């Protein structure tokens, strides 16, 4: 026994020089091999590169615009867009419009989620439900939302319901299938373990299946929320007197390109912020992954 322990301990004694050279190597590789397939980034480099590249793009854009190679009407500079945004905030209630849009997006998103989660879970959990619903859902999700705008107006007029309905339409059916997929991927072993320690069906669903699918579900909700913003513009362009889509469309009518772009940029900023927030929550909540 002790002889074994000795032979095992020997390589460890020789470790320090090996460790030192190993520490020296990655630094060289870090600079030369960043473009090698799947090379991990050194700590802290990711955010730095992301911010640096974004700033560089904006600067290049500003530079090109200032050179006068493009007309401001066609391609305004970032500073022009920013000042348009400031003007719109003070004179045109831009932030209120953004708030209205955000409420619409979240309203439709929550409605879609609240319905899609139980239905999606049921579709994978119970074969009958899946067999019954899948063809219909698969059909509807391929219908282009813009094509359904007239129908939505016939059904709901031009009030809030139409906008919520269009957003919901664009996300609900996709989400149901994503949820069903998350549920399907829950390992059968987890379910069977729970049954063999005495859990009943409801407990298996709640304590095991739902918990197991939760990280994937939250990710899919985050992605779906992004789609909502895409459909929002369609809904607000067609039938609205408020919201960012309305602002953008109104500005277009007078060819106020900086205003159009300011609206677009604001949507991008809201989207980016929401996405990062949800990612952060995901990391915090699912630390065990």
């Amino acid at each position, binding site marked *: 026994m002790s002889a074994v322990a000795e032979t095992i301990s020997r390589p460890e004694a020789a470790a320090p020089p090996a460790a030192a050279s190993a520490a020296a190597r990655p630094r060289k590789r870090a600079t030369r091999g960043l473009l090698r397939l799947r090379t991990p980034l050194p700590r802290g480099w990711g955010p730095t590169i992301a911010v640096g590249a974004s700033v560089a793009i904006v600067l290049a854009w500003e530079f090109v615009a200032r050179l006068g190679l493009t007309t401001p009407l066609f391609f305004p500079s970032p500073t022009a867009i920013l000042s348009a945004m400031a003007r719109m905030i003070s004179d045109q209630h831009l932030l209120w419009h953004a708030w209205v849009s955000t409420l619409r997006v979240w309203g439709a998103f929550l409605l879609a989620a609240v319905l899609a989660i139980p239905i999606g879970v049921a579709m994978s959990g119970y074969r009958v439900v899946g067999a019954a619903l899948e063809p219909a859902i698969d059909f509807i999700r391929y219908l282009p939302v813009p094509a359904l705008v007239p129908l939505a107006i016939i059904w709901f007029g031009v009030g809030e319901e139409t906008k919520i309905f269009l957003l919901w339409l664009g996300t609900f059916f996709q989400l149901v299938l994503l949820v069903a997929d998350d549920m399907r991927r829950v390992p059968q*072993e987890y379910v*069977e373990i729970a049954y063999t*320690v005495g859990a009943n069906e409801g407990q298996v669903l709640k304590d095991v299946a739902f918990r197991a699918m939760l990280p994937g579900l939250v990710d899919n909700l985050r992605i779906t929320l992004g789609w909502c913003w895409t459909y929002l513009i369609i809904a607000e362009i067609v039938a609205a007197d408020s919201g960012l889509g309305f602002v953008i469309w109104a500005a277009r009518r007078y060819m106020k390109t900086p205003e159009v772009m300011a609206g677009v940029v604001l949507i991008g900023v809201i989207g980016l912020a929401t996405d990062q927030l949800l990612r952060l929550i995901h990391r915090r909540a699912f630390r065990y992954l």
Partner: protein
Amino acid sequence: MTHLQFDQVTKSFGAVPVVETPFNLAIDRHEFVVFLGPSGCGKTTLMRMIGGLDQPTSGEIRLEGEPVGAPDRRRGMVFQSYSSFPWLTVAQNVAFGLKYRNDLSEQEKAVRAERYLDLVGLYEFSDHFPSQVSGGMRQRIAIARTLAAGADVLLMDEPFGALDALRREQLQTELRRIQRRDAKTIVFVTHDVEEALFLADRVVVFSKRPTRIVAEIDVRSRLGEERSLEIRDGEDFFALRRETIGLVRAAAGDEL
């Protein structure tokens, strides 16, 4: 005293027969039985039928004389992979089955969970997540969870298949110790001859599909009850191993 009994059991999936010849086997209380056989011969299927996760096509499986029904906590499963819940800590995993027991007070549950956590040597890892401990420890979590929930039959389907040789040996020794100490009935599936002989009181060797028993090896009478690592290097173990490999080869036929 018979604990578990297969009585004229057959099983087919649709038109595909897995166990065609009616299968009979009686397993004593506190017996450690190992199913050894070529892959695809139906070991997992037999085990799942004991657990109530699959139903026999005909015949009956009895636990303490009563036909087994839906899964319950008396028959605990330990799988090779996905054996512990990643979102629960080690301690929560071990205590998992206890929350479904209304016959115990919270106090009793806590004591019980702690006892089994300790039994498998994971006490100091209580607050770790399974992703932070080794594969061997994850299998120990599963064993402790099953015992804590109150299983008196452990159904283990190649539980150590994914572990390296050293961890395997260590867990085998521990499992055997726990089984002696807690007096559990264990049905263990493997296709590793050495593992089978080291663990078992009795090894049941299966033919390839359609499955039937080709041999039963009474390991207890050959190697005794006590299993230490030394026994593995002994003459008796070697002889038994050679014999068993011969049987397994013959059973697998031309598939090897």
